[in-house]
């Protein structure tokens, strides 16, 4: 059984309440089409569970097969440094079919952030060490592709359609003595 070796900390990108009984961690890649599909599934789960679910996103760019994945992750981290991580994260996935460097700048400007500052961050790879750290921690935890999910620290193996994740999270809630 693969378990999350890097605990969730305030340095993570977190949506939801710290007191939520279930934490779903995703290791994802902005250029991976499967992650693009997972994006809307997560939104549905968040809607369904409300405050019972906390969601954490960590970077796992497969840079050799996805040439834009690393810059996209850097762009999201750049936005995160300005308190706008989730808007950028959502924008990148919602526009995944036209993912490109110009799109990253377009989204940056839409958020009212400085394109010049993004250019500088991308050129100096300011956020790459954080992304690499996410990646290494993921490998250590048994992330074997994208997306990989952990539910309360345990890797979710097998299919991850909405119904699959719903069943897995419900099971966890029942174990915790909460009604699903």
């Amino acid at each position, binding site marked *: 059984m*693969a378990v999350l070796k890097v605990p969730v900390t305030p340095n993570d990108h977190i949506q939801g309440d710290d007191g939520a009984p279930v934490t779903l961690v995703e290791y994802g*890649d902005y250029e*991976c*089409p*499967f992650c693009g599909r997972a994006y809307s599934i997560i939104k549905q789960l968040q809607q369904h569970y409300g405050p019972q679910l906390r969601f954490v996103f960590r970077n*796992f760019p*497969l*840079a*050799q*097969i*996805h040439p834009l994945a690393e810059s996209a992750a850097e762009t999201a981290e750049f936005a995160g440094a300005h308190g706008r991580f989730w808007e950028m994260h959502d924008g990148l996935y919602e526009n995944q079919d036209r993912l490109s460097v110009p799109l990253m700048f377009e989204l940056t400007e839409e958020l009212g952030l400085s394109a010049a500052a993004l250019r500088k961050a991308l050129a100096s790879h300011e956020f790459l060490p954080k992304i690499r750290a996410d*990646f*290494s921690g993921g*490998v*250590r*935890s*048994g*992330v*074997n*592709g*994208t997306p990989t999910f952990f539910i309360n620290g345990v890797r979710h*193996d097998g299919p991850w359609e909405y119904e699959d994740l719903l069943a897995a999270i419900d099971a966890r809630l029942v174990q915790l003595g909460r009604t699903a």
Partner: protein
Amino acid sequence: MAQILPPGTQAPDFTLNVTPDQKLSLSELRGRPVILAFYPADWSPVCGDQMSLYNEVLPEFEKHGAELLGISVDGAWCHAAFAKDRHLHFPLLSDFEPKGDVSRKYGAYRHNDGLSERALFVLDKDGNIVWSYCSPVAVNPGAEGILEALEDLSSKEKNTHGRVESPSYAK
């Protein structure tokens, strides 16, 4: 699942095509750790398949001086096209003729399917198997087991060096 060669076994030597016109023998890699990753087939239709993952983790394997070899029954031309498509930076060997011969020697052949198992072996610098693992064929085993085995090897290596270098009078 097949019974793969366990730790403590000397890894059987082999010579396989690494490109359509080049061969590689395991014995050429003596002196550094070797990772053998047997896998069923090129072109599995997912992002972050096993070989793509190892490609990304390669720098961590290299920190331990380890050499990674992927092995399947696919032909050398198929491997060449697959490696090019996925930008793989490590060799893929063809266990193609006689088909599956090397996989069989490692106990990593699925006779019914005619494919290699998803079996991993970590060898020390002398060619001894120090860790092996066979994953269900549909499950990508990831890289953490390999990294742990390499770390064990590196720390043992250090200890041995310590002993060798300590002066003989310091008993």
